[in-house]
């Protein structure tokens, strides 16, 4: 099978080759990366067309290592492969114009290509050892795709590396336990029930690994910090799209193939999912930095996928996986627009922006579509998948067991999370694109075609995936994975979208009947007072009332002190131990000598 070899090793090999080339020919590197990502997109599509099968590759000289190169092309992995190819191609297009001198990251394209190759490898492989190899490589490239130019960015990069690295080692523990139980490293040969201590520990460690990659509470904290400082193309590439695809892919693999979920495992996933949704979106509500706001949403949306996959029913899994794809689409679209705004204005704070919709119309349209989509406004794709998850929850409520009985709780938290998402995106859209136009942005222009084209394509795909969800998209991508399911609700997305067109026409007619030709522009009326520069109601003020509610204020204060950041908690514990042990290092030779002699005596006593 020549396809897979091209898919996985070509990007990595070219990535290593580009690493050797000098930085001064960055354009050439970019074009090579574009070509390679186009080729891998093409092969990803070819893999998508394959029948489900196990593929063995004999690619190196030693026959002994052939057993590591067993690849499993099944319905799940080929869908994820296709979308990795798609996103890889889109973002390299964007990067060509976005990664300029100022944003320069050493060997950006080299690490970019390695990321693509290892993502393909991690998704397609059937061997746990190969899997953890590629998976670990992804953590490394994540670390290299952010530039450490000040304290905050370096610590963000370090934090991501440490959290991802720690989760990788936890996965290794899980893999070892699975090997102990099943005696094989082949994923396709494992199907363990989550009963017994070993299996439960293995399940939890693999879930922790997948959730860290995807970014769910409480192991999410690397994402907001990372996206705040990383270039937008890196944020769109890894935390927004590829890491979600991989993390949720692995979670689905765990829940569908590797383990049989018990009631308690489901309960655990549902609790994690709903806490993630609410906690992260509450944090997003009060952010000032728009990239960080998007970062918190990248966390919050994971909750829906975890709930969907955790339900374990075909409808729930279908919803979760569809949401994973949709999230990757609209969130990466949002990150790309954020990058465009940042490139043109140089501002990172919502407060300093405003009224850009006139100067950057295409970016505005992308951002609006993606923002409405993530808020679940019908008939866009975010609604389509959320609606499937909601149906899954209601359907799940018919079952017996504690988790099923509590279906109202999961559903209410999920829907409320969606309303909160809408609230924070109102802030995002109005703060950046709507509102009063500011003088300092009068010379702002739309970004170049290389940047707006990927944005528009992604926005268009968002619309298409929403409109044709039930008829075309879900049957093509999702149903083969999740198995057939029956929707319990009713929603004809195509017809409704058609009626939207009808109502736009009706709106036009009403405007035409009315006296629209007498259109007059006039400055705002604010109750007879004079408009001044200071007369403004900043979007940052919108949700002050919310953050001042007694109980919520308490949580916000604690969150500001990083009480809910696992990384920070562990750092504190480790530093505390460091302090404790450093007391022994007093620098006085005689004290050290006493320690040595005392140790020697203890040793002698034990040995004798």
């Amino acid at each position, binding site marked *: 099978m020549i396809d897979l070899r091209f898919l996985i090793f070509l990007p990595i090999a070219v990535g290593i080759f580009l690493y050797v080339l000098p930085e001064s020919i960055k354009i050439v590197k970019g074009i090579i990366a574009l070509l390679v990502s186009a080729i891998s997109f093409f092969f990803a599509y070819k893999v998508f067309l394959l029948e489900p099968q196990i593929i063995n590759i004999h690619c190196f000289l030693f026959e002994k290592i052939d057993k590591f190169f067993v690849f499993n092309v099944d319905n799940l992995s080929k869908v994820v492969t296709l979308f990795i190819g798609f996103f890889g191609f889109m973002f390299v297009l964007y990067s060509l114009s976005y990664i300029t001198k100022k944003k320069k990251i050493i060997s950006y394209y080299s690490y970019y290509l390695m990321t693509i190759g290892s993502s393909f490898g991690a998704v397609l492989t059937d061997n746990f050892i190969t899997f953890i190899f590629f998976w670990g490589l992804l953590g490394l490239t994540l670390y290299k795709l952010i530039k450490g130019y000040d304290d905050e960015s370096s610590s963000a990069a370090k934090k991501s590396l440490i959290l991802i690295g720690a989760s990788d080692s936890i996965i290794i523990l899980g893999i070892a336990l699975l090997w102990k139980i099943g005696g094989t490293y082949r994923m396709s040969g494992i199907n363990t029930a989550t009963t017994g201590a070993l299996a439960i520990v293995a399940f939890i460690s693999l879930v922790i690994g997948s959730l860290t990659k995807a970014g769910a509470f409480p192991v999410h904290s690397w994402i907001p910090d990372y996206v705040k400082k990383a270039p937008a193309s890196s944020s769109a590439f890894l935390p927004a799209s590829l890491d979600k695809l991989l993390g949720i892919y692995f979670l689905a693999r765990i829940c569908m193939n590797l383990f049989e979920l018990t009631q308690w495992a489901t309960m655990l996933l549902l609790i994690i999912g709903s806490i993630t949704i609410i906690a992260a979106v509450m944090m997003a509500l009060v952010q000032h930095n728009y990239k960080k706001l998007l970062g918190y949403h990248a966390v919050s949306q994971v909750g829906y996928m975890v709930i969907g996959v955790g339900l374990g029913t075909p409808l729930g899994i279908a919803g979760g996986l569809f949401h994973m794809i949709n999230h990757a689409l609209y969130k990466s679209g949002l990150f790309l627009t954020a990058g465009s705004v940042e490139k043109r204005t140089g501002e990172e704070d919502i407060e300093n922006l405003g*009224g850009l919709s006139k100067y950057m119309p295409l970016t505005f349209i992308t951002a609006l579509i993606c923002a409405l989509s993530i808020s679940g406004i019908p008939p866009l794709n975010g609604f389509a998948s959320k609606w499937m998850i909601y149906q899954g929850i209601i359907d799940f409520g018919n079952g017996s067991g504690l988790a099923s009985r509590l279906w109202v709780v999961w559903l209410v938290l999920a829907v409320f999370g969606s309303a909160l998402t809408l609230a924070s995106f109102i802030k995002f859209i*109005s703060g950046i694109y*709507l509102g009063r136009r500011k003088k300092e942005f009068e010379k702002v222009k739309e970004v170049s075609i290389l940047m707006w084209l990927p944005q528009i394509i992604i926005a268009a795909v968002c619309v298409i995936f929403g409109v044709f969800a039930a008829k075309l998209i879900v049957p093509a991508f999702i149903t083969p994975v999740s198995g057939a399911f029956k929707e319990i609700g*009713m929603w004809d997305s195509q017809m409704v979208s058609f*009626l939207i067109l009808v109502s736009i026409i009706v709106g036009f007619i009403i405007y035409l009947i*009315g*006296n629209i030709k*007498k259109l007059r*522009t006039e400055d705002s009326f604010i109750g007879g007072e004079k408009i001044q520069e200071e007369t403004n109601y900043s979007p940052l003020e919108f949700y002050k009332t919310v953050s001042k509610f007694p109980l919520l204020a308490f949580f916000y204060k604690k969150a500001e002190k990083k009480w809910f950041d696992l990384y920070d908690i562990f750092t504190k514990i480790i530093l505390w131990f460091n302090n404790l042990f450093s007391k022994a290092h007093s620098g006085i030779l005689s004290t050290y000598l006493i320690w040595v002699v005392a140790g020697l005596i203890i040793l002698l006593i034990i040995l004798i």
Partner: protein
Amino acid sequence: MGKEIFYFLIFPGLLFSGVIGGFLSWFDRKITARVQFRQGPPILQPFYDFVKLLAKETIVPLKGSRLTFLFAPVFALFGATMSSVFILLPALGIETGFSGDIIVLIYLLNIPSVCYIIGALASANPMASVGASREMKLILSYEVPFLLVLLSIVIKADMSIKLSEIIAVQSANGAFIGSISGIIGFITILMCIQAKLGLVPFDIAEAEGEICDGVAIEYSGSALALIKLTKYIMLFAIPALVVLLFMGGMNFVGINILWSILKVLLVVLLITLIRNTNPRVKIKQAMKFFWVWMNLFAIVAVILAIFGL
């Protein structure tokens, strides 16, 4: 496809619910006038208003985003019409494959509010921004109790989220308002729709005396006419939803026509009386009211519904 366009534009969509909504709006104004010892407008006044607004010139804000500003009311009208179609088709007992369920409705009913917010923000008026932020906070407040009440209905209707099946269960076992959880749910949803329709005491987002109509401050002429039409439709669609969920829907055979009309009028009368006998609350008070008290009510309704009461 022709059938669906008919549903959408003529009956029970745009035209029908617009006209009925106009009459309901007159009813609301007439009752208000009687409460305040005034004469009240003639029955066609809402339609005069609409036509008059079409003839007026439209002013767009200088520093805002013009297209977004003008498009927002169109989408708001779409949201209102679509939800009225999805509510009225089952409520009137019209059998068709084209319908929605409760969850879809929650989202569709939010579209008008979202469009007002986006339009208001596009107008770049500080007062509109204040109104928009309040509208959004209001959505956040009533969303959870509204959803919980709907879920109590879902539980009572044997886990069905289809409106037609909810009506079928009621016609078999009697209307849901006849049970304890039904009464509690009805009270809660009455408060929620008061906020959804933007009526006193929850007209905080519009607050004429304070922020000059808030979200709608910059709208004039045809655009304002569209907003008015949206409000008429919502004034019919939402009470119809309440009738459907709690009073067993409507029926247009024989004497039942009278009952159906009276049911809708009763709901509109209730919300009109509430709006005429209460002062406007502050946004913080409203949020506290919904988050604490209405949630409590709704949770009680859900628990009672689980136990079949």
